[in-house]
């Protein structure tokens, strides 16, 4: 156990003496070796082609389920980077409003700081307070997080890009999204803490009060579209900016946006976690990854509410301006792959890749080296390589955007949704919060009547216009 003979003892150490890296690499090594042996065995015995064929058959028969599983996995996985992005926005945008700089040391312009926050949350001690109701305490963050994430299943990110095309997508969204309140109350009650109890009760009162205006505000859209299917709603906003529902239903949009702010527990309605009064509210007793779940769930909720606002009112994946006249002006016809078919080059493609890449990298590196006189040639070449990657990615994305319609749709959707997230963050930085009685008073006395008014006016307008058309 002494330092002598260190090299040999590394491999032969028992499990307890391994470092963390050793505990990861050694199992991976074992698994890798085992898989290789299994594959070689299968190939040698001639079973491999049969196995591959059988797998493909099974997959081919259940494409729907496979697609659904893939969509669900993707949705679960993308929530974390989205939360990281919104956390980064929160830190930077509020800092800019405060005339500060915000985090700028970790990663370029501070972009990795939210990743570091996520890792910090993982590394904290995860304890359960004495007297807490342990199963409820453990499950509360899970309920909140799942309720938030499951709603993403029906949101259409682009034409054809959705998790599950339900005919009652809108109803599913509100039904599942409302389950989050149960999680908040579970957290508030099971923490055995009066602050948490207050926070949980405030959450129940506040969020449930705003469920009603949230749903009523959307009824106008359902009347105009005639369907609860989210894809249909987005498609009915295609055309021009004037077809978007924010233009056709301004009052509904405003009510929905205010109610969405309250649903997500964002300032000015963030009294469920008012951290200058009841120090983190329902989440006071949570730490470590359980708190991380609440944390992430809140930011995912922000994204989901922005996404929903985009889908319902801002036209979803429709572009605000039409790009076809521009393309026709430049005589670019779609699809472009007939002109840019790499397969036509045959062996020339190999030469293009083998020689063209180093030449372009060299040219870019040379340009950088001439511009930045104090950098060495190696550093300039590395930066040239990065620029080359950037250039190729840009060209590839451009080709994709022109060819596949869903890339442009996804881009516009994300642009709108993330813009709305930034607006949520701006509101958090500027506005003070309302009191609980003002919150509920505002919901019941102002938003619900306004939403009902919106429904009546919309219905009346539809009847009037239909009768005018009918008589014409």
């Amino acid at each position, binding site marked *: 156990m002494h330092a002598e003979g260190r090299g040999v003892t590394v491999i032969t150490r028992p499990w307890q003496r391994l470092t963390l890296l050793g505990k990861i690499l050694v199992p991976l090594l074992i698994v890798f070796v085992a898989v290789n042996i299994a594959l070689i065995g299968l190939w040698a015995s001639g079973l491999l082609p049969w196995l591959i064929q059988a797998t493909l058959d099974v997959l081919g028969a259940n494409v729907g389920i496979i697609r659904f599983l893939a969509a669900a996995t993707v949705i679960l996985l993308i929530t974390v980077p989205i939360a990281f992005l919104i956390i980064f926005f929160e830190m930077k945008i509020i800092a800019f409003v405060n*005339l500060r700089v915000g985090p700028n040391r970790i990663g370029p312009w501070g972009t990795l700081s939210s990743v570091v926050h996520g890792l910090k949350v993982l590394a904290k001690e995860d304890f359960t307070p004495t007297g807490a109701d342990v199963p409820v305490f453990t499950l509360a963050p899970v309920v909140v997080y799942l309720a938030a994430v499951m709603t993403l299943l029906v949101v259409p990110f682009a034409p054809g890009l959705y998790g599950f095309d339900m005919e009652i997508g809108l109803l599913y969204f509100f039904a599942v999204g409302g389950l989050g309140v149960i999680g908040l109350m579970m957290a508030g009650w099971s923490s055995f803490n009066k602050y948490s109890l207050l926070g949980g009760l405030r959450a129940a009162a506040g969020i449930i009060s705003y469920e009603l205006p949230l749903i009523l505000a959307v009824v106008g859209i359902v009347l105009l579209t005639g369907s609860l299917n989210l894809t249909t709603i987005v498609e009915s906003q295609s055309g021009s900016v004037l077809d978007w529902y924010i233009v056709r239903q301004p009052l509904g949009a405003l009510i929905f946006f205010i109610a969405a702010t309250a649903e997500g527990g964002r300032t000015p309605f963030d009294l469920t976690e008012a951290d200058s009064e009841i120090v983190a509210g329902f989440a006071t007793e949570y730490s470590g990854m359980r708190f991380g779940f609440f944390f992430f769930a809140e930011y995912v909720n922000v994204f989901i509410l922005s996404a929903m606002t985009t889908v319902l009112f801002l036209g979803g994946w429709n572009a605000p301006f039409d790009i076809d006249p521009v393309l026709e002006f430049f005589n670019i016809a779609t699809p472009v792959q007939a002109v840019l078919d790499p397969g036509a080059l045959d062996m020339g493609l190999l030469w293009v890749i083998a020689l063209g890449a180093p030449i372009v990298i060299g040219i870019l590196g040379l340009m950088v080296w001439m511009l930045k006189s104090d950098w060495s040639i190696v550093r300039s070449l590395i930066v040239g390589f990065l620029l080359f990657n950037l250039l190729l990615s840009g060209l590839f994305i451009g080709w994709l955007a022109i060819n596949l319609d869903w890339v442009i749709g996804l881009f516009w959707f994300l642009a709108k949704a993330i813009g709305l997230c930034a607006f949520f963050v701006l509101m958090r930085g500027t*506005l003070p919060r309302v009191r609980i009685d003002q919150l509920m008073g505002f919901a019941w006395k102002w938003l619900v009547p306004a939403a009902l008014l919106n429904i009546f006016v919309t219905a009346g307008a539809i009847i009037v216009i239909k009768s005018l058309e009918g008589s014409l």
Partner: protein
Amino acid sequence: MRTDRVPGLGVVKGLVFAFTQAFRPKVTIQYPEHDDQIPPRNRGRLILLYDEFGTLKCETCFQCAAACPIECIDMGGVDTKNRFHVHWGPAEQYAERREESALRRSGRPVPDRTFSAFETIDLAPLDAILVEQEYRPRHALRILEQTQAAYGHLPVAALQHIAHQTGAWYSELYGIATSYPHLRFEAPTTHTVAICRCVACTLSGGGRVLAAFEEHLGTSVGGVSPDGAVRLQTTDCRGESAGTPRVVVDGNPLPRASAADAATIAAALRATVAQGRPA
């Protein structure tokens, strides 16, 4: 538009204002790239000051060393040969490490007599341990365990010696020792005697009982008897004393306590402990 006429306009104005502020220049000073903010009169730098003629202001009047509650100011002597315009250089180069502060070496009255340095111990066993462990600070845990085996506990003098010899910080060793429950800083005692010193208990005879315990146990309040068997400490009667002083022996309160009882109790406790230091 007046903001009190149109509802919600104040909120919108605030949001627009905040949005415009995001594009203004930031007031953050990026330390350490820009740290030229220290004014010349800043009193935070540990340097000796000169007056406007270039003469050193410090006259070594010793008031600062006498006033310092933690005795961290020291005076060094250099023959200036009557030249007062001496440039002393940066403060890092001033000090020599000394074991005793200038205040104590000067013979002046020290305000806090009850603070005494840690008692010295025989360092020979400790030196043997250190030689065996090759003075490696990374073996601190082993060193501490063997020190406890040799001395029965971890005396402060031993930790100091280890720190000086191995180069590990005292605080590191202290931290290691507090992380393990089997390492202790005081000799283990078998018994505790606790007495309340509030006014009511003292008036009902507690003072005499305390004096008797101190005499028979051979220690003052808060200390341990010389054979390490009994610890004498204070407790709190919370106002419950009903005419007798509250005396708690090993967690059991005594119904009656007098000075005579103190003698018998002390003798009984010390007799129950085996001879020599308990391991």
